[in-house]
């Protein structure tokens, strides 16, 4: 079942586009990574889903409810962490969370105590005196404290130390295990790689591709370095379909090959010569995403 579903969702600010023709489906119980460079339209999408922005055209549903008509019910079942976190600086963390729990008409004190202990967060200080990381923790507690069915998180680990990032990742995995859904906008690619089931990439206000993390990994390239006893004919490898770049070293007896997908053809070709050594290194997901960001292989999907 789709928790978030949009059809041709488009938002213009006057003449300048925020997001164009977004068709997106986020399924129940998954962690959906939403990636893209700054200004690509991630926050616009999120703020449109929450009805902070009125769509220029197109439509969307969350929990099957229309994002405009059903917004109050949607927000009741959603936890939100804004990317550009602003809070009431003169309140303490505890006052802030108490107020927001009251706006939900809930008593979340138990959950707040549990979460703040988990994050090692002292709630009885003024928010303006918190460090960036502690502010972020208050924001996260606010998003998690009512145990929402859907979490919409914009740059959630910004400012958190590695220990807290790990704690946060465990929390997300627990959320998924309970069948709840996470819409995660992030720049921290290893985090997305580790957590997300599926990933959508936006670039220049359009959704470029959506696929599972595994599929993205399948797209990944690897670098194969082979040292031969004698200098091989260069054409041997550059003619292969899977090889798209050949670099020669050591006066020509060492080849550095960039290979897309399987390296089977390369190995079979190399076996016809005397090989002194061979090493392979898989490019990580980061390289794949970077190529999408820059548009170098936007046709690869």
């Amino acid at each position: 079942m789709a928790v978030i579903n949009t059809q041709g969702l488009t938002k213009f600010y006057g003449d300048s586009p925020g997001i164009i023709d977004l068709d997106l489906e986020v399924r129940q119980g998954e962690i959906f990574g939403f990636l893209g460079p700054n200004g690509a339209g991630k926050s616009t999408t999120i703020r449109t889903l929450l009805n902070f922005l009125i769509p220029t055209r197109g439509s969307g549903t969350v929990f099957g409810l229309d994002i405009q008509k059903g917004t109050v019910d949607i927000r009741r079942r959603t936890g939100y962490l804004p990317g550009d976190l602003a809070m009431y600086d003169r309140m303490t963390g505890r006052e802030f969370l108490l107020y927001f729990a009251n706006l939900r008409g809930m008593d979340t004190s138990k959950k707040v105590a549990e979460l703040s202990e988990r994050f090692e967060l002292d709630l009885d200080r003024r928010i303006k005196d918190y460090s960036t990381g502690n502010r972020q923790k208050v924001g996260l507690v606010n998003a998690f404290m009512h145990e929402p069915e859907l979490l919409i998180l914009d740059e959630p680990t910004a400012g958190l130390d590695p220990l807290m990032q790990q704690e946060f990742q465990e929390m997300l995995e627990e959320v998924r295990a309970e069948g709840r859904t996470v819409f995660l906008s992030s720049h921290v690619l290893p985090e997305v790689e580790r957590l997300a089931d599926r990933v959508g990439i936006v670039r220049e206000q359009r959704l470029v591709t959506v696929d599972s993390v595994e599929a993205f990994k399948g797209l990944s390239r690897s670098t194969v370095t082979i040292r031969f006893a004698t200098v091989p004919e260069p054409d041997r490898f550059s003619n292969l379909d899977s090889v798209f770049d050949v670099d020669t070293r050591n006066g020509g007896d060492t080849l550095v090959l960039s290979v897309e997908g399987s390296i089977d053809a390369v190995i079979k070709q190399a076996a016809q010569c005397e090989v002194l050594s061979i090493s392979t290194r898989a490019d990580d997901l980061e390289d794949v995403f970077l190529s999408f960001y820059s548009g170098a292989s936007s046709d690869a999907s």
Partner: protein
Amino acid sequence: MLRSVFTKTLYDFRRQAMGWAIGTGVLTTWLVSFYPIIRDSDEMADLFEQMPPQMMSAFGIDPDTILTGAGYLSGQLYSFMGPILMIAFAVSLGTAVTATEERNNTLDMLLAAPVSRIRVISLKLAASVLLASVVPVTMAVSLLVLNEPVGLRLSVVGIISMNVALLLLGLLFGAITAAAGSLTGKPGSARGIALTLAVLTWFASAFEPFFDWLAIPNQVSPFTWYVGQNLFLEPWSMGLIWIALTTMVIAGSSIWLFTRRDIATELAVLPDTAVTRRRSRTISPRRVTLLRSVAGKTMWDRRRTIFYWMGGIASLLLVTFAAWPALAANAVAMEAMVNALPTEMFAMFGMTNPESLSTPEGFISSRAYLNMGPLIMILFTVGGVSSLLSKEEQSGVLDMVASNPLPRRTVLLHKVGALTLQTALIALFLVIVAFAGNALWDTGLVPINMIGANVGLALLGLFFGGMALAVWSLTQSGGTAVAITSAFAVVTYFVNGLGSVVDSLAVVRPLSPFYWYIGDTPPLAKGIDPLYGLLALGAVIGTAIAVWRFDKRDLAV
């Protein structure tokens, strides 16, 4: 303009400095334009002869020279309004030297650049001196231009000397602000320390004739050095040297304190205090019952400041009550003054019925309900709309509020409701103060009139608050809302006042909200006027527009 700390400071204040120059120029011209009326009226001369000398000195009036240009200007401009403008601007400049940047955490960035602290603060102080001089320079230029045409008969040296003195007075309090900012790192504390000192030293100087115990404080008050003699007539004073030297010592100490300061912590590191204390401290939840709703939170925000607003208008009201017996004793002089001055002059201050000034209703209204009172009340409501909604939208915290399961209109209506309640509380407090003042000074006011005037005042504030709300929701800009509403308030204020004497304005006068509030009768003399209903209606319409618009527009990015 962004080449150095010096030019950057000038650049930051370019609009403000322009505003102060315009304001100062208008005020000077306006006050000077009344001079011929005062000079040529025999009744004014009689009036000044009859006023008690202590009262005159408290307002900087010298009976021997008041009817000359030098006496009139030193009394009307340079003893009160001028210093207020000068010190207000100097203090805001002094706050910006280091404290504002420290609070905003931009000081860290600035000091990370390869510039020494001494250089940073010295350049900022120097730029502030240049900016502060905008006020006296504008006054001096205005006086030089108006001197001949109006017949002020001022000497050029006198004009220069008077304005140098005004500048020095401002720089002194600016330096105190900067030093307090270097010491505390907090803009609020810096401003508070400087303004408190300014009020206390002014009081010591102005009220010395009334109280013997002020003799010694009077000697050390910079205001005494400043007003010790009429500088238009005797342009040389040792007092100026003293102010200049004190200012330099304090400015020097602000530099010294700044070089020893831990940036963005609570205390300056003075030689004998090793500071390890962190500024954040544990605070138990406060007034949690108020945090149950958006309206409650809005009350929570102003749980302290509302008392300042109440206190401000209430003390104005009490002082006016207290002044009535003295004026009643001089009723003849009072009436003579009313007859002597043109009605236009009263109309400028909202007094559309000057004859009523010799009644307690008219007099007390004239001070508390016709100009300062409405000004403070409108600042409260329009400022409330600005801080509750437009600033929250701008900072992004409104996103957090809007992510909760509440319709947007609920958020808006809660905030408006709380603001209305706060306004009503202020009005209620003013009613109580009025009853007390009435009993204490025996002014014989009727209860329903005291209630009515405050109902009218509150509704006037809410009318402009509603208007600001509507403009904000339509334009999405808090700055635009405040600007349009203030401009509308100023224009309609004068339309009502001048409309009572200028025929061409009489047609539009009934459209002014100030006409509904004041009309031709002092608020303390008319109970609950049916026209107040129009003010309430305006507030409701403004809110309705805001709700309608706010429900279906984008929250700002």
